[in-house]
């Protein structure tokens, strides 16, 4: 398939402005700014069926239309926080195909009638932000940014803004708080950003990958895009493959390819190292239930609806693979450690629940637990469900509840009162020849 988002894989040097322009870059933007009304742009995006790639899969055109109906947006903010474990697509996009991303952001700004757009990047993308600043300056030097762009009367400024290490800032309202110079704690909803966003003004928040799709949609039309993927999950999606797989990395594929294709396909993951059996699939980082790698699951199409039906979420399609050597109690511990570390502390169930779950998991993994502790772990997780202020807390129970449901034996193997033989030590994966990796430290 031709790449839509990862176009640098087809066109070398597209991270240079001249090359990008030589390959049709900024044509869509020019057309939009000089000859289309914002509503017309929104209609095209709506018709394309593009859905948000940040996790929730909300139709992008619909989101944009919320604003323009009533009043223009004041701000468009791109969510480049990319902190979900197993997600590394937005970084590649911004590094390797930066101009297409910027063009998408600029078209979104035009559609929303915003005069300022920010790209909020996780603080760790420090070096990348410097690079992007240079690229923005180049784009501006061409007259695509600034006052009265291409004589259209439209003016736009684009800025990067760095976070400083907080996963919760990927949640859009926490992101806005952070951009306002405050603690990254989520806001109550409603009001939604479209109503009261940045500085209490109407705001559109979209993911990096979502926006990077936009120039091609406007260049080639909604029908072209809609023809890719499935009827309800249109287009292609960058799938991040990590963990126990021969060729970890980003793969852009039409929505609806099966897990099996992605994991075992030669042009994708290329199978499990050492020919081991796959045990579990995390389709969306740490934030969605772990799926057992059954044949039925492997044949599930990777689109929003099918993965949900299979009991998990497609989310940002950050697929982490766990082979048969992995102890799921250990994997759950790793993930809860993450959530406990990232809980912002605003609401009680998440703040206390993640801490408590981690305690019980530690005890289990240390071999100090009894059967009642496993019960308790499930109880604590269930006790959090439906009570948190934002999705982070709600997400955090997924690894626990899904591993308890599908891999309970892994927990029981750790118990002091277990009849089963003591568990093997926690996963110590064998050396994996990774894509660009020839060697891993000896002795591993």
């Amino acid at each position: 398939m031709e790449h839509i988002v990862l176009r640098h894989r087809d066109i070398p040097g597209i991270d240079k402005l001249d090359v990008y322009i030589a390959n049709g870059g900024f044509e869509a933007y020019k057309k939009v700014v000089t000859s289309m009304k914002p509503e017309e742009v929104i209609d095209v995006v709506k018709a394309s069926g593009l859905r948000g790639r940040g996790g929730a899969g909300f139709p992008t055109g619909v989101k944009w239309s919320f604003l323009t109906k009533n009043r223009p947006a004041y701000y468009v903010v791109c969510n480049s926080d990319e902190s979900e474990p197993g997600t590394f697509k937005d970084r590649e996009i911004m590094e390797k195909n930066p101009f297409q991303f910027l063009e998408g952001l600029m078209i979104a700004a035009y559609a929303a009638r915003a005069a300022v757009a920010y790209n909020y990047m996780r603080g760790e993308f420090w070096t990348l932000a410097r690079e992007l600043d240079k690229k923005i300056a180049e784009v501006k030097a061409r007259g695509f940014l600034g006052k009265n762009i291409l004589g259209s009367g439209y003016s736009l400024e684009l800025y990067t803004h760095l976070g400083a290490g907080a996963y919760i800032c990927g949640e859009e309202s926490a992101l806005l708080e952070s951009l306002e110079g405050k603690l990254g704690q989520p806001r109550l909803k409603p009001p939604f950003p479209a109503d009261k966003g940045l500085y209490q003004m109407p705001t559109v928040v979209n993911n990096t990958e979502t926006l990077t799709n936009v120039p091609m949609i406007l260049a080639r039309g909604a029908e072209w895009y809609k023809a890719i993927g499935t009827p309800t999950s249109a287009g292609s999606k960058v799938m991040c493959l990590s963990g126990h797989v021969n060729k970890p990395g980003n793969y852009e594929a039409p929505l609806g390819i099966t897990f099996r294709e992605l994991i075992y396909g030669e042009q994708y993951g290329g199978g499990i190292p050492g020919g081991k059996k796959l045990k579990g699939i995390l389709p969306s980082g740490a934030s969605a239930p772990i799926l057992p790698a059954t044949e039925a699951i492997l044949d599930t199409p990777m689109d929003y609806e099918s993965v949900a039906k299979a009991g998990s979420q497609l989310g940002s399609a950050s697929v982490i693979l766990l082979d048969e050597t992995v102890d799921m109690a250990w994997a759950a511990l790793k993930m809860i450690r993450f959530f406990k570390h990232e809980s912002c502390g605003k609401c009680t169930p998440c703040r206390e629940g993640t801490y408590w779950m981690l305690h019980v998991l530690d005890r289990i993994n240390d071999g100090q637990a009894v059967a009642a502790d496993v019960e308790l772990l499930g109880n604590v997780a269930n006790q959090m469900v439906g009570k948190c202020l934002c999705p982070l807390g709600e997400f955090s129970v997924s690894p626990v509840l899904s591993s308890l449901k599908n891999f309970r034996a892994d927990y029981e193997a750790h118990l002091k009162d277990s009849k089963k033989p003591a568990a093997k030590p926690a996963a110590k994966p064998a050396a994996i020849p990774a894509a660009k990796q020839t060697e891993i430290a000896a002795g591993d």
Partner: protein
Amino acid sequence: MADLIKLKIDDVELSVPKGTLVVDAAKQIENDIPVFCYHPKLTPVGMCRMCLVEVGRVQKDRATGQLVLDENGRPKIAYSPKLETACTLPVEEGMHIRTENGKVAGARNDVVEFILTSHPLDCPVCDKGGECPLQNLTLRYGPGSSRFVFDEKQHLDKHVPLGAEDNALIFLDRERCIQCARCTRFADEVVDDHVIGFYQRGRKLEIVTFSDPGFDSKFSGNTTDICPVGALTTADFRFQARPWELTHSASICAQCPVGCNLHLNTRRSGTSGRIEIKRVMPRQNEQVNEIWICDKGRFGHHFTASPDRLTSPLIRKTATGQLEEASWDEALELVATKLKAANGAVLGLAGGRLANEDLFAFNQLVTGLGGRAVLASHMGGGDWVQKVGLGAGSNFGAMGKGTTIVVVASDLEEEAPIWWLRVKQAADRGAKLIVANARPTKLDRYAKHKVTYAYGDEVSAVNGLAAQAAQAENLVVVYGGEGMDLAASTALAQACANLLISTKHTGRPNNGLVAVWPHANTQGAWDMGVRPSGDALPEAAVLLVAASDPVGDGAALPRVGFTVVSELFRTATANAADVVLPAQAFTEREGSFTSGERRVQRFYPAVPAMGHSRADWQIFSQLGERVGQGQTRPGAAAVMTEISKAVPDYSGVTYQAMAKVEKQFPDVGGTDLYYGGTAYQNNAGLGVQYPSAADRGEPVAVAEVASVAHRVGGLVAAPITVLYDRGTTFIRSYVMHPRIPRPYIVINPADAAALGIADGETIVLSVNGKELSAAARVDGHAPAGALLAPQSLGSPALVGLTPAAAHKLEKVEA
């Protein structure tokens, strides 16, 4: 009338105004939905998740917008699968809230259990124990036992000063904090002092301050009341007593003209056996102070129990020339003899911290003898407040859009902190605030319009507001006396009154004049007929001074034959007296104060009188009896009965009327389990606001403003007020000492440069032929040509603008 919304909570149907939150709606039918982070005075945040309820909404057909009906023809209700927070949820038409089913009970149980995973079980030694919302809600809704059996319960620092150890007023017990953000929201939203905040995140969140002095806010103590656990305690109260051992006595704050309602919490001391004030708490009065008090009111009570208090009468013995202890009989008889012999040449000088009853009895005594009773004050306009003062039924708490508030010649936060707070909040709600002053003050932040005049030009500044005043729907003018003497402030009061009268803003609620008086009962003194004198005090055979220290203030006493002082302490004036009579503090007796809003409010005795001290009204009554003015009055109430007959404005002011209470909203006292833990509940009275002449429909007319001589040319010193001063009473609150500045003078950078003075250097200021030295604060907040001299910081008192000279203190050779 706001639109009403009909809803059902469990089985009760009710109608509440649109915009009401479910939690408040439930409260109105006595259904106390448990909360931690929610507080009706703060913006809801929905953090703690304690208030989860099940919510059903009427179903509407998507296409037609029609209600979907059930088989009985009633609207079909769809219950959301997820519980929702009642504290953030506005009521909706037809909504059905369930608060009592198993799902909700389970959620409450779960949330309490979560909170307790981090909370120590140290109730037996916690200052909040007995009035703790967490304790209460745990008993009522909690799981009974925790499954969090880890010995890793957090062990965090327990006595963390919010600020430096030696200047912190508020201490944090980190273990106990449940991260509800009530304290930070109070500081951020209500008082706009961003001096406490969260540090770290997740379970490590802790309250910190990086200000100096720590938690640098004049309202910091309020956070200890609204903290739903024992995490925040005051330096003053912590470890002092258990809440349930405390007695609540209703009182009124004596520190400023706002008249905040208080409860004095007392207990018998284990060591001294005396009944002592352990803490001062706000008492709810939505018209006056809502549920807030400032730190001066909270921590300024220590003078009442000071060992320096006078405990028995003193008479100067001719043999020794010293003041020596005497009996009341001896002292009163001596004074009475002198008064009778004075032949009318009696001068009375009274201070504005006396109660109405004292001032009335004082005035009766002095004028009855043919003498003259004068108020020790340099601020005028009390008569204008009587005429066009804030209209009956006014409430700063209800002011917002449509109301214009003018504040002139006052640094409100320093002079009347709770008014500052309420004016600021009115501005937050959309009231148009106009601040007029010769220098910037903190209130400027909220002003829509700021008028800067030169000291001396107050009247023309007010006259310049005529156009804006005319546009205002409602107009409140708050005036102070900064930089003015009696003549100038009288002229200002008149100009303010003219502004109100000429634009027809009198005799209506939320319209009228408010004076920022220097003392708690200055208005009462005016009302009792004890008023300041602009002229030099006349000579007299007997001078009777009550609650005033002219000598200490550096004023020259008139030549008198015999001086009598009624006081709490041996002030400079007392030391110069022939007889000193020990007076009772307001905490030891009954009485009433009249606030700047003309609200007459009662206070009650909380502790036994110190030594042989007597109430001032009693002292003056007893003197009256001895000089043949009739029988001593039996009690303070009897004095008030006399007042209501003798003073027409007070005809409706009785002790019974002042003691009346009614239900107040928000309902934060009483039996509920969650805002409680404080002394908010007001059972002792809301006071009576006597009607102004305009309220009574009497004609009020614009009067010509007497011209006041302007002082021009050269440096002038302008007296300004600071809240934390070295006044006789406040200086006895040792906890506040780190916040009381050393004497200083604020000087404009240009003036400082001209005089060769650098910031922090000592300058010598010559005023009225006296020299004083103080540290220079070089700061553009001082207008050019004016030296700002904070009063009562240990420097000679100034009356109005005073010509001054200044130079740098030359280094003395060591």
